[in-house]
């Protein structure tokens, strides 16, 4: 039986060079059109690992996922935060539209436990999104997590430092974040598709002009410095 190239391209995991993969599993829209256009399927993948690489902290590395997280927990699924570097702050999450009652924070005592917890959360199918920070980089462990992610259908995001960019990964998608001139710059070092030519720039979050007036109107008395 001869298959045409067009038929082959219909197979899962097969795509033309120069085109993005047609994601077989549902994706979660990122909330940013510029980013959606560059991701296979048009959003964060589910059922596979996604790596977010960043060195600086506090550049919006978690909040740029907020829109997707809010969407990922539809149909009552959980958002598991496994071993985050600090405590996720409830008012901030609520403010960005994430349902607090769906958030589950897991703070394991040591790294074997955090790997195990991540694996359980990914496999269970009860999680819409699993975010994890692991203090180890062994390929074998990531491979295990990738298997677990494939078994479940969660949006699985692993946060690592950009030093990991040199290492190979079982994840299908890898994005690297940096903050340049007040905007978040996103490179995509790995995706199922052609290499990304120029980084995507998202101007999200706060204005960076120093001394600009506060951009909020709190309910309780607040002193606002007027420029």
């Amino acid at each position, binding site marked *: 039986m001869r298959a045409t190239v067009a038929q082959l391209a219909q197979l899962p995991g097969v795509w033309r060079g120069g085109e993005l993969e047609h994601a077989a599993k549902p994706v979660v829209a990122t909330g940013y059109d510029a980013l959606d256009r560059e991701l296979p399927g048009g959003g964060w993948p589910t059922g596979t690992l996604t790596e977010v690489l960043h060195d*600086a902290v*506090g550049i919006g590395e978690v909040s740029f996922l907020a829109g997707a997280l809010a969407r990922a927990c539809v149909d009552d699924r959980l958002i598991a935060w496994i071993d985050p570097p600090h405590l996720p702050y409830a008012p901030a999450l609520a403010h960005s539209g994430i349902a607090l009652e769906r958030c589950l924070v897991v703070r394991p005592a040591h790294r074997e436990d955090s790997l195990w917890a991540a694996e359980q959360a990914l496999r269970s199918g009860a999680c819409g999104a699993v975010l994890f920070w692991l203090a180890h980089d062994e390929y074998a462990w990531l491979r295990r997590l990738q298997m677990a992610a494939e078994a479940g259908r969660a949006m699985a995001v692993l946060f690592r430092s950009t030093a990991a960019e040199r290492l190979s990964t079982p994840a299908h998608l890898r994005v690297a974040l940096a903050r340049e001139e007040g905007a978040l710059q996103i490179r995509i070092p790995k995706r199922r598709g052609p290499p990304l030519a120029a980084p995507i720039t998202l101007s999200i979050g706060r*204005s960076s002009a*120093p001394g600009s007036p506060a951009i909020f109107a709190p309910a309780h008395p607040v002193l606002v410095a007027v420029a």
Partner: protein
Amino acid sequence: MLWVALELPALPLQIAERAGASRDPLVISEGPEQRPVVVCANEAAVAAGVREGQAVAAAKALAGDLRVLPRNPEAERQALERLAAWAAQFTPMSCVDGQGIVLEVESSLKLFAGHAKLSSAIRRGIHELGFHAAIGIAPTPLAARLFARAEARGLQVRSCLELAGLRERVVDLPLFLLDWPAETLAHLTDLGVLRLRDMLELPTEGVARRFGPAIAVCLGRLMGTLADPRVPYAPPPRFRSRLELPAEADGVEALLFPLRRMLVEMEGTLRGRGAGVQQLVLWLEHGRKLRTRVDLEFASPEREADFILSIAREKLGRITLSAATIALDLRADALLTYAPRESTWLPGAREQAIGRERLIERLAARLGRERVFGIAIGDDHRPDRNWKTVSGTISREIVPDTVFAERPTWLLNRPQRLITRGDTPSVQGDLSFIAGPERIESGWWDGAEVRRDYYMAANPRGETFWIFREHRGDQGWYLHGVFA
């Protein structure tokens, strides 16, 4: 009426070997201390030539490494009662009878799609418990027991569903299968009455006069001409089960197999009562009064053996045992109403909630309850207090409708003092203010008064932090959050 009788041959041996068969010869002894005799012998003992009825001394001469356990009628009675409680999942009418149990199943046939499916479900269940039983099905309890005994002795008996066909099924069975006194049986043998056929042909009045009314009543009940009312076994409102291991178990893995048998037994018992358990205590007995307690707790009443086993596995994996385990003791003192879970073909919201609770249970079992939590907004305006943790299971909380200024994704456990250059705070570079100040103060009512000016500030690398200036005490700058 349709009765199912379960006969457990060599029950004392089955109890002794329930947690796993031993490879060494083992016999159960009974009788006076001076001259105990063998009542049952396991395969290894039989292979060595040990027979039932032999003196234990003779058996010891045949098998050098023979292990002898005295018969424990109390343990047998308890085992049968627990079996009756377990069988309550099939029918409300289950009771202990002889060396087994009888169940009235007429009303359960529809639920289990016929007697063949029901009896194979019972057989499978008994096997999971670690027992083996012969099963007899007949319209009267005595006939069902007769059939079960016949099967246990290797006789071919087909089950009988109608009273009309009972006579022809029983006539060929030998009389010794009935629980009659030995002298009565001997007397009948002398008369040439060996099978039920011969017995049933004798006139009833004559039988009653010669062998006593009990025998005549028994025949009447057997054939269904006399009523045979039974009282269903009413189990106590708690679950207890103890299982001795065939050999000392060093690891935890070796405990899981016998534990599963106990959990299956508990599941059946709970099913029969429509109950579940929320708290379980498992004692691992090490001998010499040493024991280890393992607590199993669930968010909602549970009864599925495999789920509870998975939780127990995580719990047991965490503990190091000081000594080898010789017995398991499982106790549940409060049986709670169990809300059955609807299962659907398509995974829906309900399915998710179950998976969610199970996931939380599983994580908490291994990591500890304090390490798995949900978060909610607290009833306070001070940043340290306007969040709180909520325990494992997540209830839908009412989120206070408060408009907050932009808040950081991460909150530090405790504010961290910043270095300052001149009056400019710095975190890996001088910070420049993006927004603020936002004055947060007061809290005199609980002694944790604050007076702080919060700012959003970024360093040259673009890292944005939530910092505040303390107006009480040292007037210093502190880092309190990260806009991750």
